[in-house]
C-alpha cells in the first residue's frame, strides 16, 4: 500500500487509540446525508412501486379499448391471444352507478368483470374477503370496496339497490327501470383509499344489463408474460389489431403517465435538494481537514524531509476525504435501511402522538408506508457522496502540498 494511502487510513482510524472526534463527526455528517437520501428516495420509490403494483393488479399490464363499445369481445380476445407475449385477457364494462343501502346513497364506479377469466389477468382474489367470495359472485350479487361498504353500512349478506344512468334514459321515454337489488357477498381492500371508497364489482352480465350494453364491453385487460416491456408490447398489440376495429391498446405506464411523471419529477427534485445535505457535510470535512493540515504542519514537513513528494502529500489528504466518504456512505446506508426496516413503527408512533392516523390514510392512501429502493438511485447516492467527499479533500490537499518542508519543520 502506498505510504500516503496508509497514512490517510491511520490518521482517520488510528490503531490502539480512541476514535478521533473529527473523523467521527465528519463520518456522521456524511452518513446522515446518505441516510436521508436513501430513506426519502426509497419511500418515494415505494409510492411509485405501490402504484404500479396496484395499477397492474387492477388493470392488467395493457388495456385495450375501442372508440365506442367493443361489440364482439370474444373475437378481439382471440386476436390478442395470437400475439406472442400475451398470456391472458379478460373483458370488462364500467360506469358510475348509484348504490343505496339503509337510506344511505353512494355513487361509486361499478366494474363488470368476467368471473371465470379475471383471475388469469388480475389477482383480485388476493384482495377480496372473505376468501372465496369472488367465486360466489353471480349476476345477483356484488362485492363492495371496504370503505364503500362502511359508508353504506352494508355487510356480507346485506342487500343493496343499484341504479344506472340507463334509468334516466328510460325515464325520458316514460319507461320505468327499477333499481336492481344485489346481495353483498364480500368486500375488497386494496389498501388504496380511492379504490376502496369508490369502486364496486359485479359480474360482466349484470353490468351489461344495468347499462344496456347487450354483449358489448368497454374494454379488455391484458396480462403479459413476466419481464416484457409494457410499452413495447403495447406497440406490438396495436400493430396486430385490425385498423378497421378502431381498437387502441395502452400500457399501464401510458395510462398513468401524468401521475408517474409527477412522482418521478418529485423524486428527482427531492434527490437533488437532499444531495445538498451531503454537500454541507462535505464542507465540514473540508474544514476538519484544513484544521488537520494546520495541526500537522510539522509532520507534513517531516514527510517532505523523508522524501515524500508534494503530490503524494496532497493524495494523503485527498484520500482522507475519500475514506470519510466511503465510511459515511456505509454507515449512512446501514442507518437508512435500518430506519426503512422500522418505518411503519415510526409512522405509527408519529401518527399516534400527533393523532393524525385518519389524515394520513386520507391523504396518503396507503395503510403502510411503502418502500422501494431503486438500484440506480442507490448507485447515484454512493458515487455522488464518495465523489463529493473526495472533492472536499482537495482544498486541504492543495494547502498541504504547497507547504515547503523547510518552512513546515520550522513552524511553531
Amino acid at each position, binding site marked *: *500500500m502506498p505510504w500516503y494511502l496508509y*497514512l490517510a487510513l*491511520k490518521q482517520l482510524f*488510528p490503531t490502539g487509540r480512541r476514535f478521533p472526534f473529527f473523523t467521527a463527526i465528519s463520518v456522521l455528517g456524511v452518513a446522515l446525508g446518505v441516510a436521508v437520501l436513501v430513506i426519502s428516495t426509497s419511500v418515494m420509490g415505494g409510492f411509485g412501486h405501490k402504484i404500479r403494483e396496484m395499477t397492474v393488479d387492477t388493470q392488467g399490464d395493457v388495456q385495450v379499448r375501442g372508440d365506442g363499445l367493443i361489440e364482439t369481445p370474444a373475437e378481439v380476445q382471440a386476436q390478442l391471444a395470437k400475439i406472442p407475449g400475451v398470456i391472458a385477457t379478460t373483458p370488462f364494462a364500467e360506469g358510475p352507478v348509484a348504490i343505496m343501502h339503509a337510506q344511505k346513497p353512494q355513487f361509486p364506479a361499478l366494474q363488470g368483470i368476467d368471473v371465470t377469466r379475471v383471475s388469469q389477468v388480475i389477482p383480485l382474489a388476493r384482495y377480496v374477503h372473505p376468501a372465496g367470495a369472488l367465486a360466489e359472485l353471480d349476476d345477483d350479487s356484488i362485492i363492495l370496496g371496504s370503505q364503500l361498504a362502511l359508508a353504506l353500512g352494508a355487510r356480507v349478506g346485506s342487500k343493496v339497490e343499484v341504479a344506472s344512468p340507463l334509468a334516466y334514459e328510460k325515464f325520458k321515454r316514460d319507461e320505468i327501470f327499477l333499481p336492481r337489488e344485489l346481495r353483498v357477498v364480500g368486500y375488497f381492500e386494496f389498501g388504496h383509499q380511492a379504490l376502496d371508497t369508490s369502486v364496486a364489482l359485479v359480474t360482466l352480465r349484470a353490468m351489461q344489463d344495468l347499462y344496456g350494453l347487450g354483449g358489448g364491453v368497454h374494454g379488455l385487460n391484458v396480462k403479459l408474460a413476466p419481464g416484457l416491456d409494457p410499452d413495447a408490447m403495447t406497440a406490438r398489440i396495436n400493430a396486430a389489431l385490425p385498423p378497421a376495429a378502431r381498437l387502441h391498446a395502452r400500457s399501464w405506464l401510458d395510462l398513468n403517465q401524468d401521475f408517474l411523471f409527477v412522482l418521478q419529477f418529485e423524486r428527482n427534485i427531492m434527490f437533488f435538494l437532499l444531495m445538498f445535505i451531503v454537500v454541507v457535510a462535505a464542507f465540514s470535512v473540508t474544514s476538519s481537514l484544513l484544521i488537520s493540515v494546520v495541526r500537522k504542519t510539522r*509532520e507534513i514537513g517531516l*514527510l517532505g*524531509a523523508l522524501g515524500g513528494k508534494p503530490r503524494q502529500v496532497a493524495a494523503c489528504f485527498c484520500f482522507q476525504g475519500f475514506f470519510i466518504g466511503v465510511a459515511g456512505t456505509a454507515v449512512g446506508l446501514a442507518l437508512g435501511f435500518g430506519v426503512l426496516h422500522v418505518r411503519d413503527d415510526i409512522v405509527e408512533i408519529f401518527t399516534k402522538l400527533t393523532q393524525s392516523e385518519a389524515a394520513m390514510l386520507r391523504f396518503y392512501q396507503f395503510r403502510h408506508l411503502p418502500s422501494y429502493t431503486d438500484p440506480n438511485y442507490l448507485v447515484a447516492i454512493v458515487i455522488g457522496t464518495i465523489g463529493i467527499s473526495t472533492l472536499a479533500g482537495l482544498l486541504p490537499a492543495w494547502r498541504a502540498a504547497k507547504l515547503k518542508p523547510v518552512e513546515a519543520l520550522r513552524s511553531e
Partner: protein
Amino acid sequence: MSNAILSSRALAKSYLSGDRCIEVLRGVDLEVAAGESVSIRGESGSGKSTLLNLLSGLDTADRGALAWADGPALADRRAEFLGMVFQAFYLIPEIDAFQNVLMAARILRAPGAAERARAKELLARVGLAERATHLPAQLSGGERQRVAVARALMNSPKLLLADEPTGNLDEHTGDAVIALLLDLCRETGTALVLVTHNVAHAQKTNRQLFLREGKLSHG
C-alpha cells in the same frame, strides 16, 4: 578530500527581515568524509539549522555549490542518501514506533520482509524492541529520539544530519542518545554532521567546527 560524501563550496544564504537583509551564511566550505563525524557549534541564531537545511537539500542556497557523494544534491536522492534527526523528534503520533521507523522505507517503496526485519533490528539496536508496538505518546522523550534515530538509519544512508538532537532531553538521556548515535554511525560507516550546543557532545566527534559570522572555523 577524495572520499568526501558531502561537499559544499562558498554556500551563502540570506533572509529578508522587514526591509533588512540578514546574511546568515557567508560562504560555507565543508567537506565530510565517509564514516566521519563532524560537530558544528555556534551561538543561537548563528545559522546552524539553516546550514543543515542547505546541506540536506531541504532549502536552496543563494550562492555556492553543494554535492552529495558523487552526484548533485537533488530532492529525489535525499531519502536514500541521508537521514535526519531533529530536536523535536517529529514522530507520527497515529502509528507505533515500528511503523514510524518503517515509514522512512515506505516512502521509497512498499516495504517487504527485508525492510520489516531491518526496522525490527534497528529498534532492537536502539534498545526499544519491547516498545515496538507503542505509540509515540506512550514513549519518553529519550525513547522517542531513539525511534527517530532508528528511522533516520532505516534506508542505510551515507550521511546523517542531526539538528540539536538532545535539545529536548535531560543531560543523562542526551548523553545516552549521542553515544548511541555515534556508535551506530561508527558501526554502519555512516557519516554524521551533528549540530549541538553541548561542548562535551561535540568533543566526541572526529572534527569540531564552529559557525561564526556566517562562516565555519575549527572550534
